[in-house]
């Protein structure tokens, strides 16, 4: 059963790598709040994931199109919680 992982921590926070190590093949990762900085953080390779648009725009990252990262809104985040019975917040 796929898990939805929602992380709000900056990529240099110790919990960020712990989250990446917990991702199974069929899991889904969403970056919210400070976590969206991972889109431009050299030291941490990012798997395919979603990023919350409001947080991306605030931090001026919308031009940083990264292969495999899809922008979503809060409505899109709700839809992801519909399709995943297990949700882990990091």
């Amino acid at each position, binding site marked *: 059963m796929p898990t939805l992982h929602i992380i*709000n921590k900056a990529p240099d*926070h110790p919990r960020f790598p712990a989250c990446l190590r917990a991702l199974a093949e069929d899991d889904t990762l969403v970056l919210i709040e400070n976590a969206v900085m991972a889109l431009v953080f050299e030291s941490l390779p990012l798997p395919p994931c979603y990023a919350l648009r409001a947080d991306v725009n605030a931090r001026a990252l919308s031009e940083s199109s990264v292969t495999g990262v899809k922008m979503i809104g*809060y409505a899109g985040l*709700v839809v992801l*919680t*519909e*399709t995943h019975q297990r*949700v882990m*917040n990091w």
Partner: protein
Amino acid sequence: MTRSPALSYTLVISGAPYTSQAPQSALAFAKALISGGHKLDRVFLYGDGVYLASSLVTPPSDEVNWTQLWSEFLMQTRTPAVACIASALRRGILDSAEQTRYEQPASNIAEPFEMAGLGDWVEATMTSSRILYFLPTD
């Protein structure tokens, strides 16, 4: 696209206003889940999240008042909202019952938040379809 049947959500907020984005992210999510046709069972404030329930927050006029926005939303949607009593008392958030019990000079819990114990959270884990945690920034 077939949308799933209506789900029920509990949102736990454990980050404080200003010190985190938890109140803001949680409110945007709460509004979106309701627009999405789902039910918001309850909002549970835990740890530093209880600061959101302080009736005395007085931000500058050009800043948002998260306590007020949440109060309005909870009352409009008739959503039960709980501040965990142990977290609240230690952080100086009291309702009138606790004010009286501990002989404190005032109470400061915002409407419509009520004090309750972790039992409410345990019940949420058993009854809501989804339970999300809006956490501190660090």
